[in-house]
């Protein structure tokens, strides 16, 4: 269940957020989600108490290579979406305070250029999961 803490002025909404459970010793993780916005907006960062660092990141895949790229910001057009999904853009967590187990949730705050902040609880899915709860 995705918990959204709304304030009336918020234009952005998040659906399908999830993180994959970590393997033993793994101190990194990725959060996947889709941001929808009524008005043009720009995602500029993410924060969580679950890790030392949360960064917008992209796994750039080409020719069988996987390169890690920093993402400064993500523009979302009016009535548009930005999708963060496995093997693509993700919110990278570095230095996890403890491993993520299926059934846990990660408290995440997204920051937008206009000052909007969106706080959500991200469900942790089993390590073999392909997507958020309800997706097999």
């Amino acid at each position: 269940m995705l918990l959204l803490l709304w304030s009336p002025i918020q234009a952005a909404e998040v659906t399908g957020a999830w993180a994959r459970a970590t393997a033993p010793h793994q101190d990194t993780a990725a959060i996947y989600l889709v941001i929808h916005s009524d008005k043009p907006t720009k995602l500029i960062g993410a924060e969580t108490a679950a890790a030392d660092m949360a960064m917008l990141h992209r796994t750039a895949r080409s020719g069988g290579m996987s390169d890690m790229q920093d993402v400064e910001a993500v523009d979302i057009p009016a009535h548009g979406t930005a999708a963060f999904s496995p093997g693509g853009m993700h919110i990278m967590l570095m230095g996890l305070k403890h491993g993520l187990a299926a059934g846990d949730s990660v408290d995440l705050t997204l920051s937008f250029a206009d000052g909007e902040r969106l706080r959500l609880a991200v469900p942790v899915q089993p390590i073999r999961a392909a997507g958020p709860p309800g997706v097999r």
Partner: protein
Amino acid sequence: MTRTGLLAACAAVGVLAALGTGVLLERARAPQGPPQIGGPFALTDGDGRPVTEASYAGKWRLIYFGYTHCPDACPTTLSKLGAALDRLAPAERTGIRVLFVTVDPARDTPAIMHDYAHAFGPEFTGLTGSVQALAPMLDEFHVYARRHDLAHGDYAMDHSSIIYVMAPDGAFTGLLDDALSPDEMARRLRGFGA
């Protein structure tokens, strides 16, 4: 190499060319004939035992190079591979080993590789070794791996993200793109004869 193997190797050249990996292709091409992918290795498994390619003789080997601090590509690919194996019959699965080989030996000890690999399924084995022990294998498989420094002294690894399918006799048989769905991976594994 069997005729099937040769065809698969030719197909692999096509895949590599289509993927635009000019360097990989150049390095994969032998002076004449099909590309040479794979070869002997001497590494350490998750139980700390020395292993070579002969340790897995008679098994299909699905080889993936990555590292345990990998936030996205490795867990995504390994979980899909595990889901693909779930789609195979028990008799098919028992003939398959997944070898997860680290490109980050400085951090990935045998104990860490053991626990990490097993989290994805019973067929998964983690292999590590010294930089000197890993270098020939990375070369034989034409693997690209480069340290990518992040803030606070931490680092990630940019690396090849593709699954190598080796037949029970050790011959390179084909590649599985990491973007394939588990259904498609399972279908192709059956197609290879695994």
